[in-house]
């Protein structure tokens, strides 16, 4: 029987520094991974933390990590050639099939872009597989913007609104919350849309409210939840909401089910 709690050592191939607080670590990993899935990343002595996959390539997975806690602080002290322990992938992830042939809108707040980045990437590389693809990504300020290189690529292939909550005077580019840009979205067929919304709970709440105002059916909306998770295996109980285990049944939910998940 496999012992799922035993992590494997993984070497850091590359580190991309987006901001002072957010780095992306390219870690060695062989196996199938879907965007939206997560790994338990750990360093002995500091513990484990669930981190979503922000990129998937041959032989590596990317983790975009925000320095906010015990584990992540320690992770930031490690660089190329060093190793972390990882185990996973866990969770359901995003099903690309759900968004093919649709007018797709991805709305992400801050590091919320990480789990959904694989989906954006896919449709930026396969523009013919969706009717249209729009990304609305919000960051706190210009210095908090992540994935700058990816944005440059995406802007060439899909419609991108990259906004900041607040900016110093003279800043050129969209300013304001992501919700500000939702009413202006135009669609050929509102029934044939797909929305993915990922970010902090408060951002998801207000974003979904705006999306529903457009007349979008609830079943066209997907959200991803974040919770404390100690095991990622449906055992430790910390991520449970009602009868749902976020680690097993999620973290990605269609809004029809996701709206029932109340704490």
């Amino acid at each position, binding site marked *: 029987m*496999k012992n799922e709690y035993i*992590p494997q050592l993984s070497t850091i191939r590359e580190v991309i520094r987006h901001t002072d607080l957010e780095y992306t670590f390219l870690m060695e990993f062989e196996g199938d991974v879907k965007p939206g899935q997560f790994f338990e990343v750990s360093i002995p*002595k500091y513990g484990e933390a669930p981190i979503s996959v922000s990129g998937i390539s041959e032989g590596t997975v990317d983790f975009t990590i925000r320095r906010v806690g015990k584990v992540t602080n320690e992770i930031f002290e490690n660089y190329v050639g060093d190793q972390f322990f990882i185990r996973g992938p866990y969770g359901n992830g995003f099903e690309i099939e759900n968004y093919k042939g649709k007018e797709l809108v991805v709305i992400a707040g801050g590091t919320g872009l990480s789990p959904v980045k694989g989906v954006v990437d896919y449709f930026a590389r396969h523009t013919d597989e969706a009717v249209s693809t729009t990304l609305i990504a919000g960051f706190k300020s210009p210095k908090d913007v992540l994935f700058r290189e990816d944005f440059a690529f995406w802007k060439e292939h899909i419609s991108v609104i990259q906004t900041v909550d607040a900016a110093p005077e003279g800043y050129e580019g969209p300013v304001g919350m992501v919700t500000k840009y939702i009413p202006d979205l135009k669609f050929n067929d509102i029934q044939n849309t797909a929305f993915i919304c990922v970010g902090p709970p408060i951002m998801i709440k207000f974003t979904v409210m705006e999306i529903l105002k457009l007349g979008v059916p609830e079943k066209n909306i997907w959200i991803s939840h974040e919770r404390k998770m*100690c*095991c990622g295996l*449906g*055992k430790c109980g*910390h991520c449970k909401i*009602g009868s749902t285990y976020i680690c097993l049944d999620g973290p990605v939910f269609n809004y029809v089910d996701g709206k029932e998940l*109340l704490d």
Partner: protein
Amino acid sequence: MGYQLTKTKAEQMFQKLSVTCDIFAPKLMEGEGCFSDTDIIRYGKVHSLDEIVWDKKSDYSFKEALLAINETLFYFTEDTTTVPKGPKKDILIFLRACDLHAVKRLDEIYLKNGFEDFYYARVREKAKFILMGCKETCKSGFCVSMGTNRAENYDAYLKVESDTVLLDVKCECMEQMLREAADGEEAVVCDVTPDYVTENQEKVTLPKQLSNESFGKDIWKEYGDRCIGCGRCNFVCPTCTCFTMQDIFYKDNPKAGERRRVWASCQVDGYTDMAGGLSFRKTQGERMRFKVMHKIYDYEKRFGYPMCVGCGRCDDVCPEYISYSNCINRLAKEENE
């Protein structure tokens, strides 16, 4: 098959068994209660039938015998991990009907809900359950209401009646163990039926219409005002399964350490805290609601039967005298108003 044997013979066999097996049963731990000069009945290894407390309910459940309060998952030494060895001996656990029903709940989470848990599975594989009958009801239990007053799936049933011991053995390997312990002496075969209660003092009616709408009930706020979030109800509960991970490092060798899992409580601060400061269910009322709905609604929605087995330990242990069974009855009553 049912057997009757003398207490002396049974005791001899028991002591032999206690060499080849680890036998866990409720026993009196003198002076180890929460308050000074108080005793506690909890599970520990026993070597004699006389060590077992037969006439009272244990304060803590049998759960400790299958899931340690803190358990080392593996040891770290720089870049290697080593898993500690599992139990070598078979494990015999004496428990009552309600608790035997709780084993099904533990199995549901640890063996079925998602991946099979390596550590639980290797202990569970070694475990056999010996039912202790209930001649009369305990004060706070409501097993009859929960349908957990009778259990059929025991490996053996054992009852001590003054100088006689009655046994009903259901599993072949237990029969084998007993034969070996009996040293060729034949036991008297007879019919043995486990004692069980058909009525409790405490009766519970489960509410039938719980839903997300129930979140707004005043009752949660009321209990929340009384609850101090100590988590004792979770720790005595035979069906609570939550744990938190902990990394420990040795002072004399900071390069070596271990990762443990430790029982956790959904009532205690920090249970939902995420790095970065986000947390959910911040009030005790919300936590009480979460726990009660889990035990009688959410778990059932997922697995098809209620989680609570009606042992009543949470009511016995609450320092604020919060009665969970009364809370359930009030929820049911409110539905009829």
